[in-house]
Structure formats: structure tokens, C-alpha cells
């Protein structure tokens, strides 16, 4: 099946989209074109700056989360490719107001390396930098602990929201790092796909699935998952993901969670809401309380049809940070 996209030149997709995003939110965002990064229109002095970034193709991640209560800067790479070390270093030093910078990094080899180099360069320039590595994707966990470790996926939104709120309240860099690392340890996600996405300029999706199959454990870069299972009603597919997540986090009767039901790109809000109902009912059946939920396209994989479910252990402090005001293009309350 042929895919078509709204594209001028596949090589210009990311810079043209960045311009369009910032034009849509002139009161919230500023674009620095070269090296490319996005900052808040109104810098926030007197607090630790929070910076994230990664490959493009996951919109609204990360640029859509720049603004009061969340990120101070986001650094986009090419589609599914890490930003360069100098891009990240430039953004990091640009938003430092003397309190230091917290970098939130999804666990991929390229991102980890380039953010680490950027941190060293920024440190040489006198900026205090520390990092939180987000590795929530259950499907990429290996029993022997070998390899690059679990990938970072939709839990990064929760990490950016809560750390952003905590930074806004005046927490210092060591406290943010302690809080963020504990949060990541309590977060797991898993994805499921009905159809692969296609890169800008590509006419065909990355792979094909039979009509009676779904791909289980997909990541957010169009790669295959950990295997196929039979297509089934939403209630059953939800149970497949939820059972694994609850077991991985060791959740018990009486525990509370933050939930993200996230579209991987093409899956519609109607379906997401229906799946969220299933998540709610099934967790209630296990005696687990859904403290707060986020339902929508937040960490996408181009136009992949599919969704991911994220569970994060909740406590009063985390819920209060979740409820704290936020004003960004993709998240506002």
C-alpha cells in the first residue's frame, strides 16, 4: 500500500516543521536555527534549566513540551537520529542561568553519547550539568542485562512534566537528579502496533503485518517488536500489555499509578479513549488506583498505527507535581 505525506523536500522536513511549530506558538517558543534548538520565548531565571531532545519523528516530543512548568529547551535531531553534541551543548549553555542544567535523555546509543559529550563541553564552559537516563520500554529488557539496556519511550513525558514542575519550585540539581532517577525506576511502557509507519519521502511502510496479526513490543523508531500475536478485541490487547507492566513494576492492591495511553502516530483518539477505559477497568479489577491519566498522541513514531501504555508508580508528591501548572504547545493546564 503506497503512503503519501505532506513534504516539500525530505531533507528539509525537520527545519521546516520547526519553523512552523514556533510560528504557531510565538508567545511560548523561540527557534535558534543553527545549531537547531527551541527555547522558551520567556527565559526562566533563578531555577535549574531542564533540557531534553532526541530524534525527530516523535512529535509533539520534545519541542511540544517546551514552556513554563516543563522544558527550558528541546534539541531535535534528524528523523530518528540523535541531535549532534554541539547542538545539545549550545542549547545547554544557552538556557543555563547559573543554577545548572538537568538533561533528560532517552536511552539510545547515539543520544546517550552525544548528550554525554555535550555535558562535558558545557561543563568546560562553566555550566553544571547532570543527566537522567529514561529507559522505560519493557520489550527491550534483556534477562542477562547485556546490550544497550531498555529503550526510552513514552515515560519521558512524565519525567519531563514532573522534573519540570520540581525545577519550577526551586529544587536544586542534585535533588532533581535523585527525584528523576527514582521516577524512571518506577516507570515501564510497552507498545503494540497494527501497521508500521513510513519515513518522510518513503512511499512504503517499513514492514507489513498480516491482517490477523499485531506487532507486540514495538519501539518508537519503526523497528519490529519482540514478536507477533493474534489480533483481538481492544480489551484483550490491553490486558496483554497491562499484565506485563503490572508484573514488571511489582504493583499490588492499594498501589497508585500515573497512566499514559499514547498514540504511536496514526491511532485515533476514539480508539485511545476506548483503550484507556479498558486500562482503568482492568487496573481497578486488580485494586490499583489510577491517580492521573494522559491520553493522546505524545510520543509518536511517524504515522505508525499503534499505541503504548505507560505505568508510573504514583505517590502524593508525584501527583502534586503532575497537577502543577504547565503551559506548553502540547500540554497545558
Amino acid at each position, binding site marked *: 500500500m503506497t503512503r503519501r505525506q505532506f513534504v516539500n523536500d525530505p531533507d528539509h522536513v525537520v527545519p521546516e516543521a520547526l519553523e512552523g511549530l514556533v510560528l504557531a506558538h510565538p508567545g511560548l517558543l523561540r527557534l535558534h536555527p543553527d545549531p537547531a534548538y527551541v527555547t522558551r520565548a520567556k527565559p526562566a531565571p533563578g531555577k535549574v534549566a531542564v533540557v531534553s531532545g532526541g530524534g525527530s519523528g516523535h512529535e509533539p516530543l520534545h519541542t511540544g513540551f517546551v514552556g513554563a512548568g516543563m522544558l527550558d529547551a528541546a534539541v531535535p535531531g534528524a528523523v530518528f537520529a*540523535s541531535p549532534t553534541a554541539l547542538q545539545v551543548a549550545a542549547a545547554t549553555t544557552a538556557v543555563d542561568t547559573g543554577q545548572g542544567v538537568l538533561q533528560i535523555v532517552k536511552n539510545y546509543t547515539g543520544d546517550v553519547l552525544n548528550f554525554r*559529550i555535550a555535558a562535558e563541553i558545557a561543563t568546560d564552559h562553566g555550566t553544571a550539568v547532570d543527566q537522567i537516563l529514561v529507559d522505560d520500554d519493557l520489550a527491550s529488557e534483556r534477562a542477562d542485562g547485556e546490550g544497550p539496556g531498555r529503550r526510552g519511550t513514552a515515560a519521558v513525558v512524565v519525567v519531563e512534566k514532573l522534573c519540570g514542575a520540581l525545577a519550577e519550585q526551586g529544587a536544586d540539581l542534585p535533588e532533581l537528579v535523585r527525584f528523576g532517577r527514582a521516577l524512571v525506576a518506577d516507570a515501564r511502557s510497552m507498545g503494540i502496533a497494527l501497521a508500521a509507519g513510513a519515513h518522510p519521502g518513503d512511499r512504503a511502510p517499513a514492514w507489513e503485518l498480516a491482517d490477523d496479526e499485531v506487532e507486540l513490543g514495538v519501539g518508537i523508531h519503526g523497528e519490529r517488536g519482540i514478536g507477533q500475536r493474534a489480533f483481538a478485541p481492544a480489551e484483550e490487547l490491553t490486558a496483554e500489555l497491562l499484565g506485563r507492566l503490572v508484573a514488571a513494576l511489582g504493583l499490588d492492591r492499594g498501589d497508585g499509578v500515573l497512566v499514559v495511553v499514547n498514540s504511536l502516530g496514526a491511532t485515533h483518539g476514539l480508539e485511545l479513549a476506548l483503550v484507556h477505559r479498558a486500562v482503568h477497568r482492568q487496573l481497578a479489577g486488580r485494586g490499583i488506583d489510577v491517580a492521573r491519566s494522559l491520553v493522546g498522541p505524545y510520543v509518536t513514531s511517524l504515522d505508525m498505527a499503534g499505541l503504548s501504555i505507560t505505568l508510573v508508580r504514583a505517590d502524593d508528591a508525584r501527583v502534586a507535581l503532575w497537577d502543577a501548572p504547565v503551559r506548553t504547545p502540547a500540554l497545558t493546564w
Partner: protein
Amino acid sequence: MNASDTRDWMRRFFAAFDREQQALTDLDRRSGDGDFGANLRFALGRARTALENTASATPGDVLDTVATAFLHTGGTSGPLFGMWFRQLAKATRAETIGVAELARGFADATATVQRLGGARPGDKTMVDAMVPASEALAGASGSLDEALDAAAAAARSGAEATADLLAKRGRASYVGEVARGVLDPGAVTVALLVEAARTR
């Protein structure tokens, strides 16, 4: 070795890379994802332009300019080379440098790449040529020319030896046995770089 000698070294390296680029890309196609040649060509093009437009008083200035060009590239090999050049630059800030400064710079630069990339000798990466070159410089007792000869020979034999290795880091680690018998393009690039330092 002064700033002008260092520029000449880099020019010889760029020319050698241009000559070998297709072969390096072919190696990467067989062991990685085939973008190695293109990523590094982009970095070298940027370095070439920057060197023409930047005045440099010391070898370290020249190497810093090259480092910045590499740190502007995506992927993992480009930034690692960038940090190698950046660390070498820190040890070569004198107007003229000799074997001692180069040896210390190579040792620091190689340690930085290992720390950031996590690769050890034998993992079939650029480190397999960097470490022997660094050790050869550290053990050199004669003239700069003799030391560079020894380092170039060590880097080349380190690169050649990657053919027999099974990759544990980098892209080639995803294809395992398929890449056995294939030279690591990063290690070969290090050999080209160190060979280009020789003036005779």
C-alpha cells in the same frame, strides 16, 4: 611539529580519506549500516572549510577546529573522533610540540574515546587502532619521525587485526558473525589518520 605542520597533517589525512572513502563505506555496509563514509565525509568537508578560514597559532588550535567539525556530525563515530581531536588539542597548546606532547595527547584522547564509547581493545572498533598507536608513541625513544613511523605501523596492524574480531560495541555488534573477516572502518580511518602524520 608546529601549527603549519599540523595543518599539513590534516590535509594529508583528508586526502587519504577521500581516496579510501568508497572502500570504508563498503566495509561499513558489510558490518554496520553504511552511513560511516557519508557522516565522516560531511565532518571532513566542514573541517576543511573551517581550517581555511581560521588562523591557528598552535597545533592545538588546528586540532580544535577539526574537533568542532566532527562534533557537528550525527551518529557515534563522528562525535567520538571529535572528542579524540578535542582531547589531543588540550595536550598540544605549545607553539611547537614533540614526541612527549603527542604521546600524552594520544593517551588522553584514546582514554576519552574509551570512556565515552565504552569500547575496550578487541571489541572491533576504532579503539583497536588508537590504543596500539598511543602505546607506540609512549614507548618511542628516537626522533619525531621515528616515533610517528612506529605509531603508524602500530595503528595499521591494529586496524588489520580487526578482521578477525567479533564486534562487541558499535553498529557491527548487531550483526555479529556476519562481520567477521571485515575490517572495522573506524579502525582503518585511525590508521589513515596516524599514517598521515608522517612527513617522509
